[in-house]
Protein backbone atom coordinates (compact mmCIF):
# COMPACT_ATOMS: atom_id res chain seq x y z
CA UNK A 1 0.00 0.00 0.00
CA UNK A 2 1.46 3.30 -1.06
CA UNK A 3 2.27 5.90 1.53
CA UNK A 4 -0.16 8.74 2.15
CA UNK A 5 1.13 12.30 1.94
CA UNK A 6 1.38 12.30 5.71
CA UNK A 7 3.36 9.05 5.68
CA UNK A 8 5.66 10.50 3.01
CA UNK A 9 6.20 13.49 5.26
CA UNK A 10 6.93 11.25 8.24
CA UNK A 11 9.41 9.29 6.13
CA UNK A 12 11.05 12.48 4.93
CA UNK A 13 11.35 13.68 8.52
CA UNK A 14 13.69 10.74 9.19
CA UNK A 15 16.10 12.25 6.69
CA UNK A 16 16.64 15.31 8.83
CA UNK A 17 19.72 15.20 10.99
CA UNK A 18 19.60 16.63 14.50
CA UNK A 19 21.02 20.13 14.61
CA UNK A 20 20.70 20.89 10.95
CA UNK A 21 19.42 23.83 8.91
CA UNK A 22 16.53 22.85 6.65
CA UNK A 23 14.57 24.63 3.96
CA UNK A 24 11.17 23.15 3.11
CA UNK A 25 9.80 23.91 -0.34
CA UNK A 26 6.25 25.04 -1.00
CA UNK A 27 3.52 22.35 -0.96
CA UNK A 28 4.17 18.74 0.08
CA UNK A 29 7.53 19.43 1.78
CA UNK A 30 5.83 21.91 4.13
CA UNK A 31 4.14 18.95 5.85
CA UNK A 32 7.46 17.52 7.02
CA UNK A 33 7.80 19.99 9.90
CA UNK A 34 4.86 18.34 11.68
CA UNK A 35 6.76 15.06 12.00
CA UNK A 36 9.93 16.26 13.69
CA UNK A 37 10.61 15.62 17.37
CA UNK A 38 10.70 19.00 19.12
CA UNK A 39 14.09 18.27 20.69
CA UNK A 40 15.85 17.54 17.40
CA UNK A 41 17.43 20.97 17.30
CA UNK A 42 16.47 21.59 13.69
CA UNK A 43 16.22 25.15 12.40
CA UNK A 44 13.91 25.92 9.51
CA UNK A 45 15.06 28.48 6.99
CA UNK A 46 12.60 30.33 4.80
CA UNK A 47 14.22 32.10 1.86
CA UNK A 48 12.13 35.25 2.22
CA UNK A 49 14.33 36.10 5.19
CA UNK A 50 13.61 33.97 8.23
CA UNK A 51 15.64 31.45 10.18
CA UNK A 52 13.92 29.64 13.03
CA UNK A 53 10.50 29.42 11.40
CA UNK A 54 7.89 28.01 13.75
CA UNK A 55 4.45 26.49 13.11
CA UNK A 56 1.44 28.36 11.77
CA UNK A 57 0.14 30.91 14.29
CA UNK A 58 -2.90 30.41 16.46
CA UNK A 59 -6.05 31.99 15.13
CA UNK A 60 -6.07 35.67 16.01
CA UNK A 61 -2.27 35.79 16.24
CA UNK A 62 -1.54 35.99 12.52
CA UNK A 63 0.91 38.69 11.45
CA UNK A 64 0.74 39.68 7.77
CA UNK A 65 4.41 40.65 7.96
CA UNK A 66 5.57 37.27 9.26
CA UNK A 67 5.23 34.79 6.43
CA UNK A 68 7.04 31.90 4.79
CA UNK A 69 8.16 31.61 1.17
CA UNK A 70 4.70 30.30 0.28
CA UNK A 71 3.26 33.58 1.65
CA UNK A 72 1.55 31.69 4.48
CA UNK A 73 1.47 33.22 7.95
CA UNK A 74 3.98 31.55 10.26
CA UNK A 75 5.68 32.16 13.60
CA UNK A 76 9.26 32.55 14.72
CA UNK A 77 10.78 30.36 17.44
CA UNK A 78 12.96 31.65 20.29
CA UNK A 79 16.40 32.17 18.78
CA UNK A 80 14.96 32.85 15.34
CA UNK A 81 16.07 35.78 13.25
CA UNK A 82 14.91 37.84 10.27
CA UNK A 83 17.14 39.38 7.63
CA UNK A 84 17.12 40.76 4.11
CA UNK A 85 16.90 38.59 1.01
CA UNK A 86 20.53 39.12 0.02
CA UNK A 87 21.71 37.54 3.26
CA UNK A 88 19.03 34.87 3.02
CA UNK A 89 20.18 33.74 -0.42
CA UNK A 90 23.79 34.12 0.65
CA UNK A 91 22.97 31.47 3.25
CA UNK A 92 21.59 29.20 0.53
CA UNK A 93 24.21 29.76 -2.17
CA UNK A 94 27.02 29.74 0.36
CA UNK A 95 26.24 26.20 1.48
CA UNK A 96 24.93 27.10 4.93
CA UNK A 97 21.63 25.27 4.43
CA UNK A 98 22.17 21.58 5.14
CA UNK A 99 19.09 20.20 3.46
CA UNK A 100 16.38 21.41 1.09
CA UNK A 101 13.26 19.31 0.58
CA UNK A 102 11.73 20.23 -2.77
CA UNK A 103 8.89 19.19 -5.00
CA UNK A 104 9.55 17.98 -8.55
CA UNK A 105 7.97 17.72 -11.96
CA UNK A 106 10.75 15.47 -13.21
CA UNK A 107 13.92 13.98 -11.76
CA UNK A 108 16.55 12.58 -14.12
CA UNK A 109 18.52 9.45 -13.29
CA UNK A 110 21.61 11.68 -13.26
CA UNK A 111 20.04 13.83 -10.54
CA UNK A 112 18.78 16.61 -12.80
CA UNK A 113 15.79 18.40 -11.28
CA UNK A 114 12.93 20.05 -13.17
CA UNK A 115 10.35 21.72 -10.97
CA UNK A 116 9.56 25.18 -12.28
CA UNK A 117 8.02 25.06 -15.75
CA UNK A 118 6.19 22.76 -18.14
CA UNK A 119 6.78 23.45 -21.83
CA UNK A 120 3.63 25.04 -23.20
CA UNK A 121 2.18 25.49 -19.72
CA UNK A 122 1.71 28.66 -17.73
CA UNK A 123 5.01 30.00 -16.46
CA UNK A 124 4.82 30.17 -12.69
CA UNK A 125 8.24 31.71 -12.23
CA UNK A 126 11.42 30.46 -10.65
CA UNK A 127 11.31 31.92 -7.15
CA UNK A 128 13.99 30.45 -4.93
CA UNK A 129 13.95 27.00 -6.54
CA UNK A 130 17.13 27.32 -8.61
CA UNK A 131 19.12 28.82 -5.76
CA UNK A 132 17.99 26.10 -3.37
CA UNK A 133 18.60 23.29 -5.86
CA UNK A 134 22.12 24.47 -6.64
CA UNK A 135 23.03 25.85 -3.20
CA UNK A 136 21.74 23.58 -0.44
CA UNK A 137 24.17 20.86 0.65
CA UNK A 138 21.69 18.04 0.16
CA UNK A 139 18.56 17.93 -2.00
CA UNK A 140 15.71 15.63 -1.08
CA UNK A 141 12.79 15.50 -3.49
CA UNK A 142 9.24 14.67 -2.35
CA UNK A 143 6.91 13.89 -5.19
CA UNK A 144 4.16 11.63 -6.43
CA UNK A 145 5.80 8.86 -8.43
CA UNK A 146 3.82 9.62 -11.61
CA UNK A 147 1.93 12.62 -12.99
CA UNK A 148 -1.86 12.98 -12.96
CA UNK A 149 -1.77 11.46 -16.44
CA UNK A 150 0.21 8.46 -15.19
CA UNK A 151 3.52 9.47 -16.75
CA UNK A 152 6.71 8.73 -14.82
CA UNK A 153 8.29 11.68 -13.03
CA UNK A 154 11.54 9.78 -12.46
CA UNK A 155 12.99 9.68 -15.93
CA UNK A 156 16.11 8.73 -17.89
CA UNK A 157 16.51 12.35 -18.94
CA UNK A 158 14.40 15.38 -18.04
CA UNK A 159 12.68 17.02 -20.97
CA UNK A 160 11.14 19.78 -18.87
CA UNK A 161 13.25 22.90 -18.31
CA UNK A 162 15.83 22.20 -15.61
CA UNK A 163 15.95 23.84 -12.21
CA UNK A 164 19.49 22.60 -11.67
CA UNK A 165 21.56 19.79 -13.13
CA UNK A 166 22.77 16.81 -11.06
CA UNK A 167 21.55 18.16 -7.74
CA UNK A 168 19.10 15.57 -6.36
CA UNK A 169 20.43 13.11 -3.80
CA UNK A 170 17.30 11.22 -2.83
CA UNK A 171 13.64 10.97 -3.86
CA UNK A 172 10.72 10.05 -1.62
CA UNK A 173 7.54 9.17 -3.49
CA UNK A 174 4.38 7.45 -2.27
CA UNK A 175 5.89 4.17 -3.51
CA UNK A 176 9.51 4.20 -2.50
CA UNK A 177 12.67 5.91 -1.36
CA UNK A 178 15.14 6.05 -4.22
CA UNK A 179 18.69 7.35 -4.31
CA UNK A 180 20.39 8.99 -7.24
CA UNK A 181 23.76 7.29 -7.63
CA UNK A 182 26.57 7.30 -10.14
CA UNK A 183 24.83 4.34 -11.70
CA UNK A 184 21.37 5.92 -11.80
CA UNK A 185 18.32 5.31 -9.61
CA UNK A 186 18.87 2.91 -6.76
CA UNK A 187 16.13 1.61 -4.46
CA UNK A 188 16.53 2.40 -0.79
CA UNK A 189 13.21 1.11 0.47
CA UNK A 190 9.68 0.30 -0.62
CA UNK A 191 6.44 1.52 0.90
CA UNK A 192 4.68 -1.37 2.64
CA UNK A 193 2.96 -3.66 0.15
CA UNK A 194 4.53 -1.99 -2.87
CA UNK A 195 6.56 -4.28 -5.11
CA UNK A 196 9.79 -3.49 -6.86
CA UNK A 197 8.04 -4.42 -10.12
CA UNK A 198 5.42 -1.73 -9.53
CA UNK A 199 8.11 0.86 -8.84
CA UNK A 200 10.00 -0.19 -11.95
CA UNK A 201 6.89 -0.09 -14.11
CA UNK A 202 6.15 3.44 -12.98
CA UNK A 203 9.71 4.73 -13.35
CA UNK A 204 11.03 6.01 -16.67
CA UNK A 205 14.53 4.66 -16.14
CA UNK A 206 16.18 1.60 -14.64
CA UNK A 207 15.91 1.16 -10.87
CA UNK A 208 18.66 -0.87 -9.27
CA UNK A 209 17.65 -2.86 -6.24
Amino acid at each position, binding site marked *: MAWTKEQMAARAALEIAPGSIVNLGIGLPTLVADYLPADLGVWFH*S*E*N*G*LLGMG*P*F*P*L*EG*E*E*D*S*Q*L*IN*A*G*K*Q*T*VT*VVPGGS*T*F*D*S*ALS*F*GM*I*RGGHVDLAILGAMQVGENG*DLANWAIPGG*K*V*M*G*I*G*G*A*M*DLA*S*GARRILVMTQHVTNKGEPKLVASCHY*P*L*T*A*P*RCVHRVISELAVIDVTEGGFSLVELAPGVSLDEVRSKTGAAVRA
Partner: protein
Amino acid sequence: MSITSPVPAGRHRDKVRSSVEEALEPLFDGARIMVGGFGLCGNAEALIEGVVRRGVRDLTLISNNAGNLGKGLNAWLEAGIIRRFIGSYIGTNEALHRAMAAGTLEVEIVPQGTFVERMRAAGAGIPAFFTPTGVGTVVAEGKETREFDGRTFVMERALSADFALIRARRADAFGNARFWRTARNFSPIMASAAHTTIVECDELVALGTFDPDDVHLPGLFVHRVLEVKDHEDPFEYKTTRQRVG
Protein backbone atom coordinates in the same frame (compact mmCIF):
# COMPACT_ATOMS: atom_id res chain seq x y z
CA MET B 1 38.00 83.30 -0.21
CA SER B 2 35.62 82.38 -2.98
CA ILE B 3 34.67 78.98 -4.31
CA THR B 4 34.76 79.10 -8.08
CA SER B 5 33.02 75.78 -8.61
CA PRO B 6 30.62 75.40 -5.71
CA VAL B 7 29.43 71.89 -5.12
CA PRO B 8 25.67 71.47 -5.41
CA ALA B 9 23.77 70.84 -2.20
CA GLY B 10 23.62 67.15 -1.33
CA ARG B 11 20.47 65.08 -1.14
CA HIS B 12 20.70 64.22 2.51
CA ARG B 13 18.68 66.93 4.21
CA ASP B 14 15.04 67.93 4.17
CA LYS B 15 13.90 64.49 3.08
CA VAL B 16 10.51 64.39 4.75
CA ARG B 17 7.56 64.76 2.37
CA SER B 18 4.01 65.41 3.47
CA SER B 19 2.00 63.69 0.73
CA VAL B 20 2.22 60.79 -1.66
CA GLU B 21 2.04 63.28 -4.55
CA GLU B 22 4.99 65.25 -3.26
CA ALA B 23 6.99 62.10 -2.55
CA LEU B 24 6.45 60.79 -6.10
CA GLU B 25 7.06 64.11 -7.85
CA PRO B 26 10.40 63.12 -9.48
CA LEU B 27 8.97 60.06 -11.28
CA PHE B 28 9.04 60.09 -15.07
CA ASP B 29 7.76 58.06 -18.02
CA GLY B 30 9.96 55.11 -18.85
CA ALA B 31 11.49 54.99 -15.35
CA ARG B 32 12.90 51.80 -13.88
CA ILE B 33 11.23 51.36 -10.51
CA MET B 34 12.06 48.84 -7.82
CA VAL B 35 9.28 48.00 -5.39
CA GLY B 36 10.05 46.19 -2.15
CA GLY B 37 7.98 43.40 -0.69
CA PHE B 38 7.62 39.64 -0.93
CA GLY B 39 4.23 39.13 -2.52
CA LEU B 40 1.90 41.48 -0.67
CA CYS B 41 4.13 41.47 2.44
CA GLY B 42 6.03 44.69 2.97
CA ASN B 43 4.59 46.64 0.04
CA ALA B 44 4.69 50.44 0.02
CA GLU B 45 0.93 50.47 -0.44
CA ALA B 46 0.33 54.21 -0.56
CA LEU B 47 3.20 54.84 -2.99
CA ILE B 48 2.09 51.96 -5.22
CA GLU B 49 -1.41 53.41 -5.46
CA GLY B 50 0.02 56.89 -5.91
CA VAL B 51 2.06 55.90 -8.95
CA VAL B 52 -1.13 55.08 -10.86
CA ARG B 53 -2.59 58.51 -10.02
CA ARG B 54 0.76 60.14 -10.83
CA GLY B 55 0.13 59.26 -14.48
CA VAL B 56 3.57 57.92 -15.49
CA ARG B 57 3.78 55.06 -17.97
CA ASP B 58 6.12 52.73 -19.89
CA LEU B 59 7.61 51.75 -16.57
CA THR B 60 10.00 48.92 -15.92
CA LEU B 61 8.86 47.27 -12.71
CA ILE B 62 11.57 45.47 -10.75
CA SER B 63 9.94 43.54 -7.94
CA ASN B 64 9.97 39.92 -6.79
CA ASN B 65 6.27 39.61 -7.57
CA ALA B 66 3.86 41.97 -9.31
CA GLY B 67 1.00 41.87 -6.85
CA ASN B 68 -1.52 39.08 -6.38
CA LEU B 69 -5.21 38.56 -5.66
CA GLY B 70 -5.99 41.88 -7.35
CA LYS B 71 -3.97 43.72 -4.73
CA GLY B 72 -0.69 45.62 -4.56
CA LEU B 73 1.13 45.94 -7.87
CA ASN B 74 -1.82 44.40 -9.72
CA ALA B 75 -3.02 48.01 -9.88
CA TRP B 76 -0.09 48.89 -12.16
CA LEU B 77 -0.83 45.94 -14.43
CA GLU B 78 -4.49 46.89 -14.63
CA ALA B 79 -3.64 50.53 -15.37
CA GLY B 80 -1.36 49.35 -18.18
CA ILE B 81 1.56 51.48 -17.05
CA ILE B 82 4.19 48.71 -17.05
CA ARG B 83 6.10 47.90 -20.22
CA ARG B 84 8.52 45.44 -18.67
CA PHE B 85 8.61 43.34 -15.51
CA ILE B 86 11.74 41.91 -13.93
CA GLY B 87 11.06 39.57 -11.03
CA SER B 88 11.26 35.99 -9.85
CA TYR B 89 7.73 34.72 -9.41
CA ILE B 90 4.32 34.85 -11.07
CA GLY B 91 2.37 32.01 -9.48
CA THR B 92 -1.34 32.66 -9.27
CA ASN B 93 -1.06 36.32 -10.26
CA GLU B 94 -3.92 36.36 -12.79
CA ALA B 95 -3.42 40.00 -13.73
CA LEU B 96 0.16 39.21 -14.68
CA HIS B 97 -0.78 36.05 -16.60
CA ARG B 98 -3.37 38.12 -18.55
CA ALA B 99 -0.88 40.87 -19.40
CA MET B 100 1.68 38.27 -20.54
CA ALA B 101 -0.90 36.47 -22.65
CA ALA B 102 -2.03 39.78 -24.16
CA GLY B 103 1.57 40.48 -25.14
CA THR B 104 1.45 43.95 -23.60
CA LEU B 105 4.25 43.17 -21.19
CA GLU B 106 7.81 41.97 -21.49
CA VAL B 107 8.70 39.65 -18.65
CA GLU B 108 12.16 38.71 -17.41
CA ILE B 109 12.08 35.95 -14.80
CA VAL B 110 15.22 35.71 -12.68
CA PRO B 111 16.08 33.23 -9.92
CA GLN B 112 15.28 34.97 -6.66
CA GLY B 113 18.78 34.79 -5.24
CA THR B 114 20.27 36.10 -8.46
CA PHE B 115 17.62 38.82 -8.53
CA VAL B 116 18.58 40.17 -5.12
CA GLU B 117 22.31 39.63 -5.60
CA ARG B 118 22.22 41.66 -8.84
CA MET B 119 20.62 44.54 -6.94
CA ARG B 120 23.04 44.14 -4.05
CA ALA B 121 25.87 44.32 -6.59
CA ALA B 122 24.49 47.52 -8.12
CA GLY B 123 24.24 49.12 -4.69
CA ALA B 124 27.75 48.02 -3.74
CA GLY B 125 29.58 49.09 -6.93
CA ILE B 126 30.06 45.56 -8.28
CA PRO B 127 29.25 45.46 -12.02
CA ALA B 128 29.19 41.68 -12.35
CA PHE B 129 29.68 38.48 -10.36
CA PHE B 130 29.61 34.73 -10.82
CA THR B 131 26.95 32.47 -9.32
CA PRO B 132 26.21 28.74 -9.51
CA THR B 133 22.48 29.41 -9.76
CA GLY B 134 21.04 28.82 -13.21
CA VAL B 135 24.01 26.97 -14.67
CA GLY B 136 22.76 24.25 -17.01
CA THR B 137 19.32 25.90 -17.29
CA VAL B 138 17.63 28.43 -19.56
CA VAL B 139 18.75 31.14 -17.14
CA ALA B 140 22.35 30.75 -18.29
CA GLU B 141 21.52 30.77 -22.01
CA GLY B 142 23.45 33.47 -23.82
CA LYS B 143 25.45 34.29 -20.71
CA GLU B 144 29.12 33.76 -20.04
CA THR B 145 29.93 30.70 -17.94
CA ARG B 146 33.22 29.89 -16.36
CA GLU B 147 34.88 27.30 -14.18
CA PHE B 148 36.35 28.10 -10.79
CA ASP B 149 37.92 25.24 -8.83
CA GLY B 150 36.21 22.66 -11.03
CA ARG B 151 32.65 23.97 -10.79
CA THR B 152 30.83 25.98 -13.44
CA PHE B 153 29.35 29.40 -12.70
CA VAL B 154 27.41 31.93 -14.75
CA MET B 155 28.22 35.63 -14.87
CA GLU B 156 25.38 37.92 -13.86
CA ARG B 157 25.27 41.73 -14.15
CA ALA B 158 24.28 44.36 -11.62
CA LEU B 159 20.67 45.55 -11.67
CA SER B 160 19.95 49.18 -10.80
CA ALA B 161 16.94 51.46 -11.02
CA ASP B 162 15.88 55.08 -11.12
CA PHE B 163 13.61 54.73 -8.10
CA ALA B 164 12.96 52.37 -5.22
CA LEU B 165 9.63 52.44 -3.40
CA ILE B 166 10.15 51.01 0.05
CA ARG B 167 7.87 50.30 3.01
CA ALA B 168 9.33 50.49 6.51
CA ARG B 169 7.79 50.10 9.94
CA ARG B 170 9.59 53.14 11.33
CA ALA B 171 11.91 55.75 9.83
CA ASP B 172 13.52 59.01 10.88
CA ALA B 173 14.06 62.26 8.99
CA PHE B 174 17.45 61.13 7.66
CA GLY B 175 15.79 58.04 6.23
CA ASN B 176 17.18 55.53 8.71
CA ALA B 177 14.64 52.75 8.71
CA ARG B 178 13.60 49.61 10.52
CA PHE B 179 11.47 46.83 9.14
CA TRP B 180 9.22 44.34 10.87
CA ARG B 181 9.91 40.60 10.60
CA THR B 182 9.82 39.25 7.03
CA ALA B 183 8.64 42.58 5.61
CA ARG B 184 12.33 43.46 5.28
CA ASN B 185 13.03 41.09 2.35
CA PHE B 186 14.32 42.97 -0.74
CA SER B 187 13.72 46.48 0.57
CA PRO B 188 17.08 47.54 2.04
CA ILE B 189 18.87 46.07 -0.97
CA MET B 190 16.65 47.87 -3.48
CA ALA B 191 17.17 51.09 -1.53
CA SER B 192 20.89 50.74 -2.18
CA ALA B 193 20.45 50.03 -5.89
CA ALA B 194 18.23 52.96 -6.86
CA HIS B 195 19.16 56.52 -7.73
CA THR B 196 16.26 57.87 -5.68
CA THR B 197 14.82 55.86 -2.81
CA ILE B 198 11.43 56.82 -1.40
CA VAL B 199 10.48 55.33 1.94
CA GLU B 200 6.91 55.05 3.16
CA CYS B 201 6.84 54.34 6.89
CA ASP B 202 4.06 53.59 9.36
CA GLU B 203 5.66 55.92 11.86
CA LEU B 204 8.09 58.79 11.49
CA VAL B 205 10.29 59.00 14.59
CA ALA B 206 12.74 61.58 15.90
CA LEU B 207 16.38 61.41 14.90
CA GLY B 208 18.17 59.43 17.59
CA THR B 209 15.22 57.14 18.33
CA PHE B 210 17.00 54.15 16.86
CA ASP B 211 19.98 52.62 18.61
CA PRO B 212 22.83 53.02 16.10
CA ASP B 213 23.40 49.26 16.18
CA ASP B 214 19.82 48.55 15.14
CA VAL B 215 19.28 50.56 11.98
CA HIS B 216 18.26 48.11 9.25
CA LEU B 217 18.64 50.65 6.45
CA PRO B 218 21.05 53.57 6.98
CA GLY B 219 19.60 56.88 5.79
CA LEU B 220 22.43 57.29 3.29
CA PHE B 221 20.44 55.04 0.96
CA VAL B 222 17.23 57.05 1.32
CA HIS B 223 16.22 60.32 -0.34
CA ARG B 224 12.58 60.90 0.51
CA VAL B 225 10.56 59.87 3.55
CA LEU B 226 6.79 59.86 3.94
CA GLU B 227 4.70 58.85 6.94
CA VAL B 228 1.57 56.83 6.10
CA LYS B 229 -0.26 55.89 9.26
CA ASP B 230 -2.82 53.43 7.95
CA HIS B 231 -1.93 50.42 5.88
CA GLU B 232 -4.11 47.53 4.80
CA ASP B 233 -1.28 45.01 5.16
CA PRO B 234 -3.24 42.30 3.38
CA PHE B 235 -2.75 38.62 4.10
CA GLU B 236 -1.94 36.55 1.06
CA TYR B 237 -2.60 33.20 2.76
CA LYS B 238 -3.79 33.32 6.35
CA THR B 239 -2.82 29.95 7.77
CA THR B 240 -3.32 28.93 11.39
CA ARG B 241 -2.87 25.92 13.63
CA GLN B 242 -5.33 24.43 16.07
CA ARG B 243 -5.09 25.50 19.65
CA VAL B 244 -4.14 22.36 21.59
CA GLY B 245 -5.91 21.47 24.84
